[in-house]
């Protein structure tokens, strides 16, 4: 079988206006869930991975791995840098290390991304159940 392309990247998390408005609407609203279960990628990197806008991809770090939808970044060029808005999907893979000052490392985390067209993006309930086994 052909080896799937994998890309080593730096993961950033942060705000988007969709995430901001979505969270005010309600954390289980469709708008919110759709705004935070995505990963913005540089178009050049998308080509390297062979994924299109909307393809499911798997983002993995030393702390976990999550399936989200790839989105073409409008903020390119930022080769080698991917962006997931703040939310449960991002927090499955961010670095909890606080370096003794209370603040985990939410930005600049080494990660790999790979296409995962066969794996589903989990909804809120399913993600909660698989991650925390409660709810």
């Amino acid at each position, binding site marked *: 079988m052909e080896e799937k392309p994998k890309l080593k990247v730096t993961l950033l998390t*942060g705000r988007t*206006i969709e995430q901001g*408005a979505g969270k005010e609407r309600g*954390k289980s609203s469709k708008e919110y869930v759709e705004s935070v279960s995505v990963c913005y990628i540089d178009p050049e990197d998308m080509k390297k991975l062979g994924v299109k806008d909307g393809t499911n991809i798997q983002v993995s770090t030393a702390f976990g791995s999550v399936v989200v939808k790839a989105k073409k970044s409008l903020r390119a*060029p930022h080769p080698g840098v991917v*962006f997931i808005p703040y939310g449960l999907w991002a927090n499955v893979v*961010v670095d909890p290390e606080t370096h003794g000052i209370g*603040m985990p490392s*939410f930005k600049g985390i080494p990660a790999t991304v790979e296409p995962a067209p066969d794996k589903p993006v989990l909804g809120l309930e399913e993600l909660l159940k698989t*991650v925390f086994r409660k709810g």
Partner: protein
Amino acid sequence: MPVVKAVTCPVCGSLCDDIELTIENGRIVKVKNGCAMCEAKFLGYCGEHRVLKPMIRKNGELVKTTLKEAVRRAAEILAEANYPVLYGWSNTSCEAISVGIELAEEVGGVIDNTSVVCHGPSILSIQDVGIPSCTLGQIRHRADLIVYWGSNPWSAHPRHIERYTAFSEGRFEKSAWRSYVNKVKALVGRKKIQSAIKRLFFKKPVPVPPPVSEYKPYPSITKEGRKLIVIDVRRTKSAEIADYFVQVEPNKDYELLQAFRALIRDQELEVDKVAGVPVEYLEEVADAMVSCDFGALFFGLGLTMSSGKLRNIDAALSLVRDLNMRTKFVIMPMRGHFNVTGANTVFTWQTGYPYAVDFSLGYPRYNPGETSVVDVLLRKESDAALIVASDPVSNFPRKAAEHLVENPLIVIDPHMNVTAQMADVLIPSAFVGIEASGTAYRMDHVPIPLKKVVNPPRGILPDEEILRRILAEVRRIKKKMGEAA
């Protein structure tokens, strides 16, 4: 239809206080002046995600209960715990926070607010280095140079630029809107010319764009009046409207800050690039900084969350100190939640410390890294949790959230958020700033009143009142335990 004017928006730390709401049959039907987040909150606050009844987890399911029962259960959990955490507080009023701190002292727990995962490092650094700051009003009227570093106001504080900085009309400084419009027109014109050229010569091979790794500063148009500099790892929306955009490589802000410090002190840099940015361009930006009359640097989580954390802020504060040798410069953190500054302030009044306060020894102790909530959770030390107006299960790294949901979990929140879904006791509350009045602190530490514009759903109380009832119940239980012993 009644219109309520001068309402404060309870969403982000900008606390815009010019919102106009139209009320019909006890509901908000129209919002004027607000941004997208503000509209979403004022129009959606009473939507399907609202919790209307207190709930308790029984056999793994959340079931409805009475307020009295929920308060009693919450008080029992807290009174029995050895080391509970009380977390959240940045989305509620100063009055509620004040009662929360009393409760933390009563139960000997750790109380922490959301600044621990946003500007906690900034606070630590400000305690070390000091901060030259001012009010947003002064910046609006006087600042002729604005820097946003590691923050994207366009998305996180959508009206900040329009109300307080580059695009606001100040007494001594004019709005930069017009030049921005001109700039966009010029850029669109340039793109049109380019595509026309392409069309004319379409038979020739289309020129290959230079490799993306090659640094291209955003085309800037020199102009009179206020200038805007954006420094960020991504070309955000805010970057697109800036006069200078400096794209720094991830985790390299510290180098860049120190490079600016050197340039401002007229030192030569013996490299071509710092943090991926050509030194020539940095010199141009440093020149703009030095030659302003009143500069303001706003910094966001891009500095506090990436490598270096509080040391990045040290360098930013020192940069502003250096700039003050040459001109007038101020610096301010971009605070996220509408009352996170208030949480820091009330914590400091009552305990002496701005966040991460531990009452387990009977007196307040403060040692971020030890008494901060993420660390307590990562060490699996807490044995109960009270979360007020916050959603840590979706905001904390997975490892920390995992321990949080293992403990008995009490949640006070108007919405069914991710943490609320995990709760063992869930008490719905009124939205402060919509259904309850109170006080909040803007990012520049100016206290601003929040209005009550509509009534909360029947039987739903504000956070402050719920906390008072839990506190009274905790005191009653402890008295009984004391008598029994």
